């Protein structure tokens, strides 16, 4: 719960007073005072799956990288192959340490005009990431610019996102592919927009010049209100990303996990010399770490929660990374690292809540996939 003492140290987005007026409950998140919900969390998740929801993502870290060696710098910094990203396209990637352990998961955007890159990083890791970037950048002719304070970020997610967003956007959004971005005009102002998100639905993220956040937010609600567009808090966002099988830093991934055991090898390309490559190759040669990240469902009344032990044959074999009540599946869902031998879908496990053991079963992920 927020205390008066903490509030003074917290950062706020340009939309804080709008959220408060809308009746949102704001809580400290990664050093920011952020709306966790405007109404019941499960209802908010359902609105995004069936219609569309609007999210304030002002807390996410936003960084520009430019200069003659910007690409070389990125090849060192992160695991995906930046040289293979065409202008205007986006890739999911990781920042590792020398031990191959995860410092952050990020999105790498190559500018539509091919004049540099843009990175979106986790709010809770922004300071550490910037430090890693500035240290790494010393060996390259490039500049790293923290843009978090002078831009806003607003997402619209859900099946009606395109038709609603089109009403405010000068360019034809049907031409904007998934994980692509473009420069356009939104609400008559020059802005960039990407077809990305963290919910498993179609949708967009808009990068808003400082000072225009409230105009864009209100314009979305005005043109989308009749379609059911509503503001959605970070509580539902977490449920939605978990259903969609997307990892959250501090839960599925952290500085004790590597991307191979997390099933994120698609974001790791051994084509370039990134920090942590040698350690990851050593893990690969050994045939893995002996454990894997799996999804589980649990029909129990109690929801599995982060840290609850996973039990097999009376022995603790892992711990829950994230647990959610899934309104879309109508059951509880959880993720956990378990020994390779217990990672097959169908494997019956238990989780422990206080003294009780509750059944759960390994299932394929993502838990939810939208029909396209």
């Amino acid at each position, binding site marked *: 719960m927020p205390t*008066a003492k903490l509030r003074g140290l917290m950062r706020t987005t340009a939309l804080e007073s709008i959220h408060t007026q809308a009746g949102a409950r704001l809580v400290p998140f990664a050093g920011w005072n952020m709306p966790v919900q405007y109404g*019941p969390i499960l209802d908010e998740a359902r609105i995004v799956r069936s219609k569309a929801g609007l999210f304030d993502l002002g807390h996410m870290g936003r960084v520009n990288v430019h200069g003659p060696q910007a690409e070389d710098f990125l090849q060192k910094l992160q695991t995906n192959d930046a040289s293979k990203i065409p202008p205007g396209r986006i890739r999911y990637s990781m920042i590792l340490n020398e031990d191959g352990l995860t410092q952050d998961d990020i999105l790498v955007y190559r500018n539509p005009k091919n004049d540099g890159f843009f990175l979106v990083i986790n709010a809770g890791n922004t300071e550490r990431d910037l430090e890693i970037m500035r240290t790494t950048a010393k060996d390259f002719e490039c500049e790293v610019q923290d843009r978090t304070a002078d831009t806003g970020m607003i997402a619209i997610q859900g099946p009606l996102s395109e038709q609603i967003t089109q009403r405010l956007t000068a360019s034809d959004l049907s031409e904007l592919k998934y994980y692509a971005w473009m420069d356009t005009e939104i609400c008559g102002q020059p802005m960039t927009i990407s077809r990305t998100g963290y919910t498993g639905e179609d949708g967009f993220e808009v990068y808003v010049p400082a000072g225009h956040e409230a105009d864009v937010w209100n314009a979305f609600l005005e043109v989308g209100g009749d379609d059911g567009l509503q503001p959605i808090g970070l509580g539902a966002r977490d449920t939605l990303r978990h259903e969609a099988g997307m990892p959250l830093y501090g839960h599925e991934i952290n500085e004790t996990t590597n991307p191979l055991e997390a099933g994120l090898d698609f974001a790791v390309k051994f084509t370039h010399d990134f920090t942590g490559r040698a350690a990851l190759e050593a893990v690969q040669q050994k045939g893995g770490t002996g454990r894997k990240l799996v999804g589980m469902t649990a029909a129990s009344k*109690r929801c599995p929660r982060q840290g609850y032990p996973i039990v097999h044959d009376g022995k603790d074999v892992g711990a829950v990374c994230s647990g959610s009540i899934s309104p879309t599946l109508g059951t509880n869902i959880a993720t956990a690292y378990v020994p390779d031998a217990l990672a097959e879908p169908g494997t019956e496990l238990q989780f422990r809540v206080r003294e009780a053991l509750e059944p759960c079963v390994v299932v394929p992920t993502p838990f939810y996939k939208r029909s396209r």
Partner: protein
Amino acid sequence: MRPDDRQYLKSHEWCKIDGETATLGITDHAVAQLSDLVFLDLPAVGASVTAGEQYGEIESVKAVSSLYSAVSGEVLEVNAELPDNLEWLSEDAFEKAWMIKVKLTDKSGDLMDAAAYEETVKAEQ
């Protein structure tokens, strides 16, 4: 102002003492902060509770919170219908949504009256 016929803990539980019996519950402020309640775990009749220690758990969509006892003693009665009617907590946290009744042997030294609790809630906002 919240009911002044009872006492409060900083952790947002209330406790109403009538002779040797204490009735325990959580405040409307706690209910509002928890929001979206989905599960309540209460002790059985005959269990013993200890002042300042956890006697149950309440779960919302996003989190599990401990219920702390304001008193020590044996559980005499449990509001057995409450776990299946969690909306009572939002409707009437101070009467209908009582949680347990305890045969009092001791009470917490940290209990405050309604006016002091009001200040605690204000300081959080």
